């Protein structure tokens, strides 16, 4: 039997930094560890580490959700998986591997092979803590907003969020409504590299330009009815050949299969070491939270390992115009000559907004609804109208995205000329 001997010294005595020394009771701490329901989102690089850490620090009721299946390129860091597991559910294989190794009848790990969005909001109320180890921004925004919406007199589920990229990463503790939330810090995320369409179409210079030409312009032309599948070797091969031909034509060097995959899949480098650091930091916070043994991270720790080792811990400030935890509207600048379409384009590419298919409404009318289809058709005509003609002065716009449980209040500040300056030049 595995016992708790490695962690008993941490809970048996309250240390000098304990924030509640009078009320501290080691029995309560041990009981909390044994009974706390904790949810792990993601069973990948961070998730494997998180599950192992929780199982070795006294947690007994662990749930894990992951929609992905195991791939060969996971095996350089996701240590619970073996080559023969390729194609199986990450959540299920990870849960089985931990159970088999720990061998404790009191340890329950409940896997769910699917999306977090499959579960109703109320499902999340049963957990005392949620740890997310995801690379999907959208999923992290979704769980952040969902836990925020659960807050009432009895419920406050902390979200401990970890993320890594190469030799860098961050861990943070989000106490919904109390500390800054994931949405507050969207602009901290490194923006996705994009290339202007005219460069891709007319003046490619880098191998990446040729790959994007194949990806953005050629694929939809050749396969209008089929989405590109980065996990299908034939699709990748087609893309690579297409990009290579383009590159050869322009005498551009450096298009390789690996680069092609990197660009079209937006691959982020990942190793076990960084995942171990960030996952352990997240689990240390979960352990401190559940046992009350020491204070919690307040509230953001960034980690960087490419030049020596460096961490920076600071309280990331709540934004009062955060669409999830704030109540003030956000000001967005718009040129006076912009159409609604141009405004939506600007809005969706903004680092702190990042919505793929936003719908916009005001208190008096629908400006544009991206779904359902019938309403989209009805509001589509507004897209070519000037934004300034559609809005009453000082009118607030509510922006929503069908994929996110978020609604953002936006106020427009009109700047610049009434007419497109490029138009004047011509």
């Amino acid at each position, binding site marked *: 039997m595995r016992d708790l001997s490695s962690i008993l010294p941490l809970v048996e005595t309250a*240390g000098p930094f304990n924030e509640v020394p009078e009320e501290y009771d080691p029995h309560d701490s041990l009981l909390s560890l044994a009974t706390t329901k904790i949810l792990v989102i993601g069973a990948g690089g961070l998730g494997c580490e998180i599950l192992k850490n929780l199982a070795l620090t006294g947690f007994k009721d662990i749930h894990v959700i992951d929609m992905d299946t195991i791939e060969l390129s996971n095996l*350089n860091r996701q240590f619970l998986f073996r080559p023969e597991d390729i194609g199986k559910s990450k959540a299920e294989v990870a849960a089985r591997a931990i159970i088999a190794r720990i061998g404790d009848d009191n340890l329950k790990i409940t896997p769910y092979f699917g999306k977090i969005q499959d579960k109703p909001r109320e499902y999340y109320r049963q957990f005392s803590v949620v740890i997310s180890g995801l690379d999907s921004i959208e999923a992290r925004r979704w769980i952040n907003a969902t836990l925020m919406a659960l807050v009432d007199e009895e419920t406050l589920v902390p979200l401990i969020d970890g993320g890594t990229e190469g030799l860098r990463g961050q861990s943070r503790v989000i106490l919904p409504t109390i500390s800054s939330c994931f949405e507050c810090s969207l602009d901290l995320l490194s923006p996705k590299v994009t290339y202007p369409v005219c460069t891709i179409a007319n003046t490619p210079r880098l191998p990446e330009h040729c790959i994007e030409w194949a990806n953005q312009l050629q694929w939809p032309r050749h396969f209008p009815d089929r989405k590109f599948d980065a996990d299908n070797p034939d699709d990748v091969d087609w893309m690579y050949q297409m990009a290579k031909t383009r590159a050869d034509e322009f005498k551009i060097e450096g298009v390789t299969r690996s680069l092609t995959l990197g660009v079209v899949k937006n691959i982020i480098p990942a190793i076990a070491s960084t995942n171990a*650091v960030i*996952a352990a930091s997240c689990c240390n916070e979960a352990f401190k939270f559940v046992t009350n043994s020491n204070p919690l991270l307040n509230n953001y720790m960034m980690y960087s390992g490419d030049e020596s080792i460096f*961490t920076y811990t600071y309280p990331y400030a709540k934004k009062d115009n955060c669409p999830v935890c704030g109540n003030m509207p956000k000001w967005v600048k718009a040129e006076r000559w912009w159409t609604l379409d141009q405004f939506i384009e600007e809005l969706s590419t903004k680092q702190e907004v990042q919505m793929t298919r936003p719908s916009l409404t005001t208190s008096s009318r629908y400006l544009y609804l991206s779904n359902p289809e019938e309403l989209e058709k009805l509001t589509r005509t507004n897209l070519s109208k000037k934004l300034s003609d559609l809005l009453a002065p000082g009118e607030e716009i509510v922006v929503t995205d069908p994929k996110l449980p978020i609604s953002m209040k936006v106020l427009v500040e009109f700047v610049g000329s009434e007419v497109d300056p490029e138009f004047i030049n011509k």
Partner: protein
Amino acid sequence: MVVIDKETRYDRQLRLWATAGQSRLEHSHICLLNATPTGSEILKNLILPGIGKFTIIDNRLVTQVDLSSNFFLKREDLGTPIASAIQHNLSELNQEAQGSSIIKSIEQIFAEPDTFWGQFSVVIVSDYIPHLKRLIDILWSREIPLLIVNSVGFYGSLNLIATEINVIETHDPSKLYDLRIDKPWPELQEFSDSFDLDKLDDTEHAHVPYIVIFIKALKQWKIKHNGQPPITYQEKTMFRNLIQSMSRNIQLETNFIEAYNSYHRAFQKTEIPDSIKSLLFTSQERKLTPTTSIFWVYVAALHKFVSHNNGQLPLPGKLPDMASDTNNYIKLQKIYHKKALQDQELFANEVYSILDTLRRPREEISRESIATFCKNVQLLYVTIGSKYLSNDKLVEELFRDGDSTSSLAVYFGVLTFNHFVDQYKRFPKIDDLPQFIHLFTKMFGQANPLPQSIANVFQEILSHNTRNYHNLCSLMGGIASQEVLKLTTSQYIPLDNLFIFDGVKSTSERFKIDPL
């Protein structure tokens, strides 16, 4: 049996250190002393990306505490030799890594000739071992890097002990480009002159690469300013306006917009960075011998290259992307690349002439290696290490801030913890606090009474005196393994030389223990 395609398996890490780094990793041999959870985690993080070999040295048998905190132990391992149990369980992670275990005490290992250590690329000590100083001396004299990683309760520390660390591929994120706009070589000047801006049609004009715009603008400026480039803030602003005035429409011509926004590149002086100057200076003091490391052979050759080439470094030849039509950009790329190859050739000759005088074979150094050096020549990194775990200066620093909250208290607490184990053969408990403080004072002297901030940290350590808190073990294991990866791939900049993690406050700090 599933066939493993290594390129796909290692894809996510090859994007960090490429095949050159991977091959060095696969040829390294790591030694772990003490099969702790921290040690197992370190090895896990190295075996997964494909380290060549690992050896675990430990003569203990698996206990309940080990089982409680180590994922790489199974229940049936209880009571068996821990080194072989962990080696066996870790080996499942990757067939490529060859593991072995040595069930001996450190004293038994010391009884063997010191050449034993020569097989290892890096040695790791996890937590306490007796005779640590002796091990440090042996590895120091053999120039084998040593990592000492400690974990106690919510605290951790990591020392990197190495005589010297030098890195060519630092992956410096500052994105310096050596473009030589202020000193164009003939081919570059010729290319720039081939553009007659006034005669270009609007499309062509909007696609002139900004390097050409800068070279032209700078030439124009110098004619009016006695051959001087813009120096003062005011002059630089005027230069910026000059660029704007050269554009036909600064709202639309992306190349001019880029030039306008990155106008600082135009005054970037072609000169040797201070860090490289001091490297060149140091190299003069070093005597080259048949065993001098390749890095210092390169630096000596660089010194010669610089004096034979107007005080300029070899051109790395890398170009940032910039608005341009394809043709001109490719031409420009070729001009930079050709010059870089010429410089590599000249640099190689300097390297070979040094090797010849030292009677060392030229095959020692590959062309790829020379190219890599030239491409990274502005960002080379060297540091001299220390073989000490503490010195007067560090102790002074601990007490200097009085009651403030330096992490050094954590580190000295960890050192004292190990001294305590050395003396009493057991872990100190909270009841041992007076004795613990006494031992600390005996080892490191000064300050009576002990500042409250330090006393608090000591109290925290003794209250939570487990060395097997998995979260801290895993965190320190992650950090230590990352340092091993940097050392073995010879890429990125390693720790120099002390790192302390405080898991109570979730903060960390680093310090440099001086060589003397």
